[in-house]
């Protein structure tokens, strides 16, 4: 089952990096950094 654990960790790391990349390096393509109610 070790391979499954490694796979899941790799997936989590990928998702985390993807989220941060989209948030800080491509802010225009991700959801805005503030609340839903502002029009940024």
């Amino acid at each position, binding site marked *: 089952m070790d391979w499954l*654990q490694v796979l899941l960790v790799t997936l989590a790391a990928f998702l985390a990096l993807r989220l941060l990349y989209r948030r800080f390096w491509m802010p225009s393509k991700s959801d805005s950094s503030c609340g839903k109610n502002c029009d940024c």
Partner: protein
Amino acid sequence: MAHFLKVALIGNPNTGKTSVFNALTGLNQKVGNYPGITVEKKEGSCRLNRTTKAHILDLPGTYSLNASSMDESVVIELLLNRNNKDFPDVAVVVTDVENLKRNLLLFTQIKDLEIPTLLVVNMSDQMKRKGISIEVEQLQADLGTQVILTSMRHQEGVAALKEALVNYRQLPTTPLLDLETIDADYFSRLQKTFPTESLYKLWLVITQDVNFSSLERKRIQAASDFKVQSDAVLKRLQQKETIKRYQIINQTLKQTYQVNNDAATDLRSRIDRILIHKVWGYVFFFALLFLIFQSIFDWSSVPMDFIDSSFAQLSQWVNAELPPGLFTSLLAEGIIPGLGGIVIFIPQIAFLFLFISLLEESGYMSRVVFLMDRGLRRFGLSGKSVIPLISGTACAIPAVMATRNIENWKERLLTILVTPFTTCSARLPVYLILISLVIPERSILGINAQGLTLMGLYILGFAMALLSSWILKSYFKTTTKSYFVVEMPNYKMPQLKNVGITVLEKTKSFVTEAGKIILAFSVLLWLMASFGPGEPFTKADTIVREANINNPLTEEALEAEIASYRLEHSYIGILGKAIEPVIRPLGYDWKIGIALISSFAAREVFVGSLATIYSVGSEEETPIKNKMAQEKRANGQVVFDLATGISLMLFYAFSMQCMSTLAIVKKETNSWRWPLLQLGLMTVIAYVTAFAAYQILS
């Protein structure tokens, strides 16, 4: 046979226009729709005297002749088209005595269409109670019209209005605003191209999406000797027009319209007299703030303790029940503590926004804006800077965007530069955990010391914003004066539904927006703390056991020693160690250094980072607060003592740890110069104050 006069009733919404219409027409009215659209058309008739009857059209409420809704378009289309069967012989602009300034904008626009226009100042029965006095004769002379004071509640002024309608031909039709003062070149060319047309009508046809029968927009564009301007230029000219109109209105009202708050007798005025008083207003405001921060700490301690211990138990359960391995460790030591670092702050954030929305809903927030305006001017800020500074307590990003309504560029820039000092909700988790660690949970004369510290930090944020603005203002000398207009709404009972929605939205936005970043950082930090280069990391077990071979340690103490050694030689440990010389004078060790680095992206990551770092390799699952309290330096002293705690709070109060704010400042100022200056200045201030605090307190 009776002469028939066509009258149009025009006015802002809620000015009592319909009451005037009802008073004039009685039961002689009918309601239909304007052709092709669903805007309601109300018309009626009345007898003005023995020989004159009037056909009265109650036009939809509109704030100005710059159409933004279908209702407003109806008004403009009618007033621009002389061939329309309803085109009025006389326009009656109905205004509300309390909001005369705002209402007069529409009056000046209608007057400039060269239609005979009467001004009705309605709700005049409120004048005495509100302490308002009007110099009617002077107002008539300044506005070039006849002014009629009416009170529909007491049926006063109706006869005078009817008489004025009969004599409408005596009303002057000269425009109030000379458009050439806005842009002499543009408007003189426009007039030369169409010498027979009214200049203001031409201008409205160009800027609004409407036509009138004798002149179409296309014809203006087709005129070869008239250059069509871009939309941006037209927008700028429109803004200039509104500013010029308000200058005329301000000048007129300064001479003719007085409000004596001391003479007002209504309940609202009596409450206002205290709440916006130059001494009692501030006393009340700060007492209220004090109560709010006390309650935030008192009420949320129970749910917070519950959440904290629940997450610790969840980690324990995951470790015990799931098969051991890499992902189980990530869950128990990275993801669950990271999630705990988000959820634990929900009670306090919900309480804070509950209070803020109660203040907004009750109408008190506008009084705070008004109250603060007096003081702010001394610091080089505009009265309108209050809104960004107050909304900065939620998030600096919408606050920086809210500076857009400050016309003066230098005042706006100054506001943008200092707004990130106000305590945003992302700082709240950092403050809360540090306060609970270093400030004793005791009451002095019934005052909760922790609540007092939190309030102090909010005040410190505002104070630093004002101080830096005061220093910077000499570099940004302003030459133009700006006006500050705030409409004070009536006091009302907050609607529970609205308050509930605000609290839910804000809390949800914290959990989903900030939460995602915190969680992502937790995963990456766990990875960087769980792997390391070379032998010191991989063979930590052997190295530590060999080093302690002559040192009788219990197995438990030895395990802790190994975990600590391994963390120190992991990737994150190496990074933290690299910056340790820079942060050591502030009282921080390399573990706090790691949290500092990760929170340069977003400050709310701080607690989650520490939770992850302290959890890696640790067997016991205790709440994050306990872990932080147990953390010791090499010499055996606790890490989070008063000196380090205060130093960290000051660092977070003043430093610019928010990449999103930097990005929005770049966007709003259209240059990297200002965000970089902001980042540099704020980091220096944060470092120096944190350094001073630590050195003095330790």
